[in-house]
């Protein structure tokens, strides 16, 4: 059983979406700026692009030994395949976050909290869908503050190519503001594409 102080996050999608980078940034925020312990491990297939991909992040105030996330309390899904494969592992009372346009969910389950954001669409509107992972991190920072938002923002800026910093900052802010609006009820979550 994971230690109570350990927070287990699973970010999933397919290769090329920046899944591993998102996990890396989250871990950097926790270790370098929040001065906690964190590990990030990755699972991926042999394909450079398009295969199933996930990054497992553990954040803790103490040393982390076993680096695998078996029962995430936060599950981020950026593809249908990743959702179908991982939803069963989500911890009771955990949090599910998905990309509105990429995952067709069943009805929300009372056993966990759920949020969605059209992260890829927002990123496209900002110029490139490559920033969907950063939009998602911004959103995550609003709905599930695992690390300080400032720490996360710093980690984003440190991890992206210098010429794209401004754009990525916009992506982060877009995600974060959308998250705040959802929490305040200012925006009704999009109904998504429900699937029975």
């Amino acid at each position, binding site marked *: 059983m994971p230690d109570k102080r350990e927070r287990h996050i699973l970010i999933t999608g397919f290769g090329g979406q920046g899944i591993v980078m998102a996990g*890396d940034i989250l871990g*950097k925020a926790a270790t370098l700026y929040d001065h906690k312990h964190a*590990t*990030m491990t990755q699972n991926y*297939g*042999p394909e450079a692009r398009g295969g199933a991909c996930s990054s497992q992040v553990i954040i803790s105030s103490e040393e982390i*030994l*076993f*680096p695998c996330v078996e029962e995430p309390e936060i599950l981020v899904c950026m593809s249908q395949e990743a959702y179908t494969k991982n939803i069963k592992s989500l911890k009771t009372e955990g949090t599910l976050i998905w990309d509105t346009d990429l995952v067709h969910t069943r009805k929300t389950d009372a056993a966990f909290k759920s949020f969605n954001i059209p992260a890829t669409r927002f990123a496209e509107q900002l110029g490139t869908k490559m920033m969907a992972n950063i939009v998602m991190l911004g959103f995550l920072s609003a709905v599930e503050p695992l690390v300080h938002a400032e720490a996360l923002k710093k980690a984003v800026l440190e991890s992206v190519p210098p010429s794209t910093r401004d754009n990525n900052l916009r992506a982060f802010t877009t995600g974060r503001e959308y998250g705040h609006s959802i929490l305040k009820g200012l925006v009704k979550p999009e109904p998504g594409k429900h699937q029975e």
Partner: protein
Amino acid sequence: MNGDEACCEGALAAGCRFFAGYPITPATEVAESMSRRLPEIGGIYIQMEDEIASMAAILGASWGGVKSMTSTSGPGFSLMMENIGLGICTETPCVVCNVQRAGPSTGLPTLVAQGDMMQARWGSHGHYEIIALSPSSPQEMFDFTIRAFNLSEYYRLPVIILADETIGHMNERVIIPQEEDIEIVNRRKPTVSREDYLPYEADADGIAPMANCGDGYRIHVTGLTHDDRGYPAMDAKAQEKMITRLVDKIRKNRDKIIRTQNLYLDDADVVVVSYGISARSAMQAVRDARKDGIKAGLIKLDTIWPFPEELIRSVASRSKAMIMAEINGGQMVLELERSAFGACPVSLVSNFGGRILHPGLILNAVAKAAKEKT
């Protein structure tokens, strides 16, 4: 940073200025980091045509007087065996990092295993001793890579880092000390004149001072059995003398080379022995066992080769049981059995690769061993 990147940074901190490699999952990031970092600091990165060439090139570079390394995974490690043997025979300092994946053959390129332990020990033909280190975190990737260079420079042989896919691809915080706080060892140089220099005449500790190419000593270096002059000597007597020294320079210095991290050994009934990524699961299991009131202990092998026979023997004599936790069909457990020498039962917790060991599995084995009557 991840373990592969930490390996690169460790190498640079140790003074490595030449890297020859060939892309292979999950070690590619070592080469990629090197290709970015080395040119910045005046070093050379070259991608060779295969791993045979990579290994040959780092030996050549080392004789050119530059600290050198390569990195690879199982299939490439197999190809390097030939020239690892040349490095052993010619006593050439260099470092080989093997980020292990599941085999045999192409196996599971993106998934973890610890199946090359015996290959690292015996993979090249003939009889020899080797030094191999096994890191359990990106921080240890950094630290052990520095140590690997220091050991290779001091003992004059290829030193192997037996990492694994999980460690290579795991991101964690790595603390890089100030330059002046990092201990660096450089190869011993000859102090005598060219006429008096015998390239393979060892000092008292079994290590011969090494002249680099261009130092004016006009050395001859060969993979044939050779005498103190470095000249081929084709008889059993020369073989006996050369191999005895190659073996003894490691065996007789084992106390200085071997390092382990021990936990709760003072009163432990059941001692888990592990290394690399598996040692983290083992440590979790041992801590959980202590919470359950079981007197469990841990030996984490920082050096895999030479194996800590004396430590194992003394711990075995006062333990109820010992357990090896590793990701292969049972390799280092053979060493554990040999070293325990029947003093206590030895068992194995393992899988054949593709996933890391769950601490629960090890905990079950510890609990079971603790209950057994002695």
